[in-house]
């Protein structure tokens, strides 16, 4: 597994941003962050399939919490109608972290079509995202999340991952 950020880095950033809940389906990179996120006092809401995540986050936000959705790009593909409804119909500014499968290497999935579709899909859904591909990009991620939260927009960070 290649991980460009540690769980402690991510948990600290989310805490500093005021995130109260992380609604998530793990992958081999994002899942490693779960213990640190929970340890820092942010509630994890583990969902069965990614479409649930946007709707749960919407309910949390409507109730006064500050949720973040965290899933792999494959889950982004699966959850399109739900995010369309939450982010565009209702215009709820739910931030997200999306794992970009196979960006750093394709050892286990040569020719992974996630590389073909992930960014076009994000653009199609009109999600304002930043791609971060190395540890030095941490500030890019932090700035984008903070700015999105301050502006009330649904910013996403696309985090490069290694094998599936």
């Amino acid at each position, binding site marked *: 597994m290649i991980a460009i950020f540690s769980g402690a880095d991510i948990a600290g950033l989310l805490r500093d941003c005021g995130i109260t*809940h992380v*609604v998530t389906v793990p992958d081999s990179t994002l899942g490693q962050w779960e213990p640190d996120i929970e340890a820092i006092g942010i*509630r994890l*809401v*583990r*969902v*069965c*399939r990614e*479409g*649930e995540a*946007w*709707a*749960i*986050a*919407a*309910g*949390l*936000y*409507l*109730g*006064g*919490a500050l*949720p973040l959705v965290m899933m792999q790009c494959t889950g982004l593909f699966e959850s399109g*109608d*739900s995010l*369309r*409804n*939450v982010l565009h*119909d*209702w*215009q*709820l500014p739910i931030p997200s972290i999306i794992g970009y499968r196979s960006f750093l290497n394709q050892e286990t999935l040569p020719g992974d079509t996630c590389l073909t579709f992930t960014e076009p899909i994000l653009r199609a859904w009109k999600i304002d995202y930043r791609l971060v591909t190395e540890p030095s990009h941490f500030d890019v991620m932090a700035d984008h999340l903070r700015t999105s939260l301050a502006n009330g927009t649904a910013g996403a960070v696309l985090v490069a991952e290694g094998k599936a």
Partner: protein
Amino acid sequence: MSDPTAMTSLDALRLLHAVRRDHDVVISAMGAARDWMALGTHPRDWVFVPSSMGQATSLGLGLALARPDLRIIVLGGDGGLIMNLGSLITITGQAPANLFILIFDNGVYEVTGAQPTPAAPAGRPDAPPVDLAALARASGFETVFRFGTLDEWQRNIEEVLASRGPVFAVLSTSSLRGAPGPRSPGPAPERARRFMAELLGRKGTEPAS
């Protein structure tokens, strides 16, 4: 074929409307939203139109977690439920004591012309029927109700709403062939802002659930 003697969702909702507390949040989707809106409006109604079909249970979970001081009542149909069955497991995993899921089971996708769902007997003629209440139990709901008549619902509605959540209740209702889908009661973003203001404006003044 629907049973003409079965309760209608409108009649069932009329009973709920009579016992709904002022601070309760009611989330309604699809045909249940149409019928709930027909009974009036309330600032704590979240009419989930437009929606992503099946996500009302999930939105209800989020609200229940954010506002454990409030009773969150979700009104949905069997078609929506089977689009998001995993949400039952997610809900019980979070164990919200204030979440009440009421499913109006008419066996069809009513707003698209009453085609049978794959869970309904008419949609699976060569297979055994699907038991939504049993699915809920197997997903971890400890408090599950099933009502087949309006009288049963009327006699038990207070018990349902007084139970510790998460609660799952399935009500067998008749289908209305040709019934229209729910119409959005106004611009969604504006309704979201009003709803949030209502919930946040009265926060801290709620009676204990």
